[in-house]
């Protein structure tokens, strides 16, 4: 069943890492929410001389992060960032996870509380092929990296770039930069991004 369906292309991890790396200034303090094995944080530490901190729920990934010397808190993003003090980071990163948390707006507000700038990467379910699939096949969208069915997917929310911008406005945030990723290429200033982008990176700050 899944094979026949169009899956929203998840950008390659390396590409997203590079995109995020480019947005983070040298020597800054960075919090990565859902840091996995700490791969991105390692690069930020080694290539940007950043002071790093990860948060990850999955136990085996936390252990992998420890193996890399990455400081990590085991915590569930759905329970907020209670242990993280106000304004303690320059950047908070949330890569391809916002659509998986119970309350995306609450998490954005928490990120704003703890960091000056927020980097968010979200999938764009406004892609024309998703639209076409719903129109012609009457099927809900999936993504390549997470080819789950609707009843077992970690993706709780389906949003487009336009939807995300609405949330940003309502949350009293400001978009500093917006980089759509089209067929694996970062394409700032692309035309009709909401129709063409598989995902997008947003840099946000307090409005």
């Amino acid at each position, binding site marked *: 069943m899944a094979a026949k369906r169009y899956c929203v292309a998840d950008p390659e991890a390396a590409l997203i890492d590079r995109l995020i790396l480019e947005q983070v200034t040298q020597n800054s303090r960075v919090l990565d929410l859902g840091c996995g094995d700490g791969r991105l944080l390692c690069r930020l530490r080694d290539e940007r001389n950043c*002071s790093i901190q990860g948060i990850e729920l999955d136990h085996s990934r936390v*252990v992998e992060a*420890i193996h890399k*010397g990455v*400081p990590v808190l*085991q915590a569930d993003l759905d329970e907020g960032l209670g*242990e993280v003090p106000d304004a303690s980071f320059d950047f908070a990163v949330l890569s391809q996870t916002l659509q998986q948390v119970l309350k995306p707006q609450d998490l954005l507000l928490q990120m704003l509380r703890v960091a000056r700038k927020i980097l968010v990467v979200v999938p764009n379910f406004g892609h024309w092929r998703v639209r076409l699939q719903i129109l012609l096949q009457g099927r809900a969208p999936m993504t390549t990296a997470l080819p789950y069915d609707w009843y077992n997917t970690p993706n709780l929310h389906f949003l487009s770039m336009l939807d995300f911008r609405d949330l940003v406005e309502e949350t009293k945030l400001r978009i500093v930069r917006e980089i759509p990723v089209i067929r694996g290429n970062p394409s700032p200033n692309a035309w009709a991004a909401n129709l063409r982008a598989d995902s997008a990176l947003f840099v946000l700050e307090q409005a």
Partner: protein
Amino acid sequence: MASEFQSANGQPSDEGVGQVRTQFVDLFVSEPLVLESGEKFGPITVAYETYGELTPANDNAIFVCHALTGDAHVAGKHSADDKKFGWWDGLIGPGRALDTRKYFVICANVLGGCQGTTGPSDVNPATGRPYGMLFPFITVGDMVAVHLELARSFGIETLLAVIGGSLGGMQVLKWAARYPETLRSAICLAAAANLSAQGIAFNAVGRRAIYADPQFHNGDYYGTGGARKHGEEGPRYGLALARMLAHITYLSELSIERKFGRRLQHGDHLAYELQRETEFQIESYLHYQGKRFIERFDANSYLYLTRAMDYFDLAVHYGSLEAALGKTEARFLITSYNTDWLFPSTQSQEIVTSLLRARRHVTYLELESVFGHDSFLIEIEQLEQLVVPFLAETYRHALRTAAS
């Protein structure tokens, strides 16, 4: 604390550190220790054990801080036919979490204790009789000062790690605050930056049980003999009662339920005898714990050490937790346990928040276990999974830093 469960989970094998013996050294001989109270005290005899070899660079030492009623005998056996291993044997040895092929591990009995290090049951040179209540007031900071002095006596200026749970974890935190440049990492398990009001409350009842025992004699209960075994004189009932109460706080509702439930100790029927004190298995178990405890512990030490625990408050001492822990470059590994109600996770999280505020290197996990506060002594494999990479990476980082 209780190590009765140790065999329940991963029987320590004979392949550990093998046969070891507790050693003794006199410290603060020429220059007494200035206690946190301001009083001067010395010389101090310290009972300790070591495992593994110190590198020529003295850079692979790990100090283990024991909890309230622990001792220096953390791993191995004292004799070939010894039935009991050290209290954290599963964690220490060749190929174990504190790998003795790689690290030099030290553990010492705390100042004020009764397992070889100078404490209230030792003879006061001024009177020729045991100190009793004349022993000076001691703090967690004083315990750490003695530990560090012991490490220095080996030529160690910087510990690769200081590790401990409960009161041992408090020592770890105090070490990082008081001697920030002497450790590369701090592993703090099931601990807190201060003892909660609930914890003080339990300690207060335990102490009251000792004070109220007619054999307490204001701490001067040692009799006249020379060498003396614990438990032969003094407030035996009070101390046993204190232990029974404290022991409950180290367990969890779930672990007691699983291990004992409402099962009866003798037969299947209730006896309908009011004074039968060991009718339920849990009663019998607590009585046994109390009885065993008085054989190895001194009541005055219990008073002194629980008081040191009550007084411990890093934030108050240093202005804030952030100020206390912000001076060290050490990496922190902090764990709490979901069923620990004596040192609940919120207290570990408070430490984590302060470390984040101070921009320190901190790893924190709330681990799952049914064993309550005692989890850190029992869940060896769970701990090993974290400690092995944490130490290895700390060591790699230290060597890299030293090379550059």
